């Protein structure tokens, strides 16, 4: 089987010839090592969005001072500011910037933020998805970006790490205002999902389980939207994925099946995560596709230990036809020294060795 046939066999509840190995494309940058892995059957998962956004009544001003980029969003309801540290190197997937100040700092920013959210016009551009699909051919799969779960989207308005405490406090200090903010996001996401339903993409992302907020928040704010929309997307032939990179996933074990996604992606098993593959399978059923984010810390135990770990992981989830191995967080993208590069490369090859052994 070529890679595309293999991954589609898993996604369509059929039987592949072997467990697919498929990192995000940017996490294994192009070069001789990446080519060798692809020649051995590794595929690439391309994350592309067929939806772009504009806020026609919000102008954005950018000021650059050294490596700090400040953006000021001018809305009729007031100004909002974000700050990012640029050129930080490869500490984050996808980009080289780091958010150091989020858009929303407190409840005083809610009116402007709600204006921006309601001002958002979404457009569907299928060419991005179509071009990526044509390019990758049988060497990969393209996953469209879909929903931004309302609670998570609201959380990230405060900035990634920088706004964590304000986000937590404001919800409790100003619950009515917070509810309005979330409702604005829900309105926008409903519009997004309408477009997603009509897109040509089969494989789509429906948000994430981050782990920094608990299942109660997801039940309260996100689950109604999932329960309304996930069945409709399925009826349209979509295969939906939930990016569950939380390392405390055992707390979400019962919730995840209620969300209704076909694929639980970025699943990070122990020793990083707290939910074993066997326990996840028992909770989610035989047809849920579990797409592993391989925990790179294993690499530091050496290639042989990595091989054994991988084999044990595979054997913990027989028969293996609803399992995918990948990297969704770092891989060789993050290997910035010679030593780390050597260890990561040996480890990655050990994963492939074990997948091939299991196939035999």
């Amino acid at each position, binding site marked *: 089987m*070529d890679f595309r046939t293999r991954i589609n066999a898993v996604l369509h509840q059929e039987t592949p010839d072997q467990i697919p190995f498929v990192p995000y*494309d940017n996490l294994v*940058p*192009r*070069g*001789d*090592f*990446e*080519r060798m892995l*692809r*020649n051995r059957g590794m595929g*690439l998962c*391309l994350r592309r969005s067929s939806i*772009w956004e*504009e*806020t*026609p009544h919000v*102008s*954005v*001003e*950018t*000021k*650059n*001072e*050294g*490596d700090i980029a400040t953006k*000021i969003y*001018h809305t009729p309801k007031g100004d909002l500011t974000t700050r990012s540290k640029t*050129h930080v*190197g*490869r500490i984050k997937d996808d980009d080289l910037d780091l958010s150091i100040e989020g858009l929303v700092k407190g409840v005083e920013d809610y009116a402007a933020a709600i204006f921006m959210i309601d001002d958002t016009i979404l*457009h569907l*551009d299928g*060419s991005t998805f179509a*071009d*990526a699909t*044509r*390019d*990758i*051919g*049988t*060497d*990969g799969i393209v996953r469209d970006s879909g929903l931004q779960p309302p609670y998570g989207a609201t959380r990230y308005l405060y900035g990634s790490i920088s706004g964590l405490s304000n986000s937590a406090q404001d919800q409790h200090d100003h619950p009515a205002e917070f509810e309005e903010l979330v409702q604005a996001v829900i309105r926008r996401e409903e519009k997004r999902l309408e477009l997603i339903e009509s897109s040509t993409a089969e494989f789509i992302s429906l948000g994430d389980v981050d782990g920094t907020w608990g299942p109660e928040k997801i039940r309260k704010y996100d689950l109604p939207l999932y329960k309304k929309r996930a069945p409709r997307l399925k009826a349209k032939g979509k295969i939906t994925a939930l990016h569950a990179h939380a390392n405390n996933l055992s707390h979400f074990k019962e919730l995840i099946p209620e969300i209704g996604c076909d694929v639980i992606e970025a699943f990070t098993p122990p020793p990083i995560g707290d939910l074993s593959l066997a326990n996840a399978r028992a909770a989610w059923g035989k047809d849920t596709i579990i797409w592993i984010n391989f925990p790179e810390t294993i690499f530091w135990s050496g290639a042989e230990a990595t091989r054994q770990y991988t084999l044990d992981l595979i054997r913990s989830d027989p028969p293996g036809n609803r399992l995918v191995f990948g990297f969704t967080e770092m891989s*060789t993208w993050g*290997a*910035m020294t010679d030593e780390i*590069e050597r260890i990561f490369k040996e480890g990655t090859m050990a994963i492939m060795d074990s997948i091939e052994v299991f196939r035999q």
Partner: protein
Amino acid sequence: MNFRDRINSVLHLSDPDLVPFAPYIESFPSGEYERMLRNRGMGLVVRKPTVWESTPHVPVEERVEGDLSVFIHHTPKGDVRATYKQHAGRLYIDEAGICVEGLLKGLQDYEPIMYMIDDTEFHVDNTLYSDTVRDLGGDGLFTEYGCALTPYGHARYIFGESSGFDKWIFEQADHPKEFARLFDAIIAREERRMQLIAKSPSEYIRFGDIDGSWGPEVVRRYDLPFIKKWIPYLQSMGKICCVHAHAINLAFFKDLIGEMGFNVVEAFTPPPVGNLSIQEARAAWGKDTIIWVNFPETVFYQGPQATKKYTQELLESDPPGNRLVIGFTEMGLWGASDPETERLFKEGILAIADALDETGKFPIQHHTKLTDLNL
């Protein structure tokens, strides 16, 4: 030889095993077709700038109106704006935006723009080089992209690309003094940039372009002094310097290029698209100038057999082939957005690969028609 050794043999005036096939990485997005070509020896050329810039006293306001992004630069000397059409699809190899309104539109814009130029601060990020080189390994080449334009090129594009063409022409004639001041400001900025470029960890440097939309007299007047100052200095620092000569009227620049002193003439587009053959270029530039071909994709429309024959003749026109590179610098497979074009391009590119395998091994023999008849 792996690709890296092969391209470095050419760049260092040694002998490769065969002529390198070296497109820009963007020309060949990842996929099974690209992997097949790389397995046959095609390499990837990655262009990144280790020198980046900021203008700390010029905030930039962006307004999005549908698929148009308007950028307004607020300077203490006044505001200037440029407009880009976004989501335009695969029109350019690097991005999907087109400039539909350039920054400089008239006399009122000179002072703000010169303020911006003087306000430019440069910063260095060498991790872009080290990370990329580590990633590529033996499969590619890094190009320092921090000085992609010459000073006159910078002046040209301040007016916008296609949108500002006539303005750019008229302003030089109507307001020569102001244009001269603008150009001097650019030179001063570029002198500062080059101080950092000279310290780039990258050996291979892209230094400007020959666009073809302005003539050799203009290049001589505005850019040649700058080039003659910096190219020898960069070469004394161990740099290998290339000029991106994608002009289709390169015959007019033939003698000028010989004066410029570049190690590599990249994006060289031979007939039927360009008007300068490799033989003529070689005769003008000497045996040690590396000619890096941008393969003219129009040949693909003649079919794969004709493409293969064209490629073989191209290779045989420049024996022994150790100062020749075949690549794509403008479009490649990136531009094949419909099934028919995709099919034609893929067949054509395979024909190039076949021709390289059969005819591109060093040393390439020169074949004449007479020789063929003798067989």
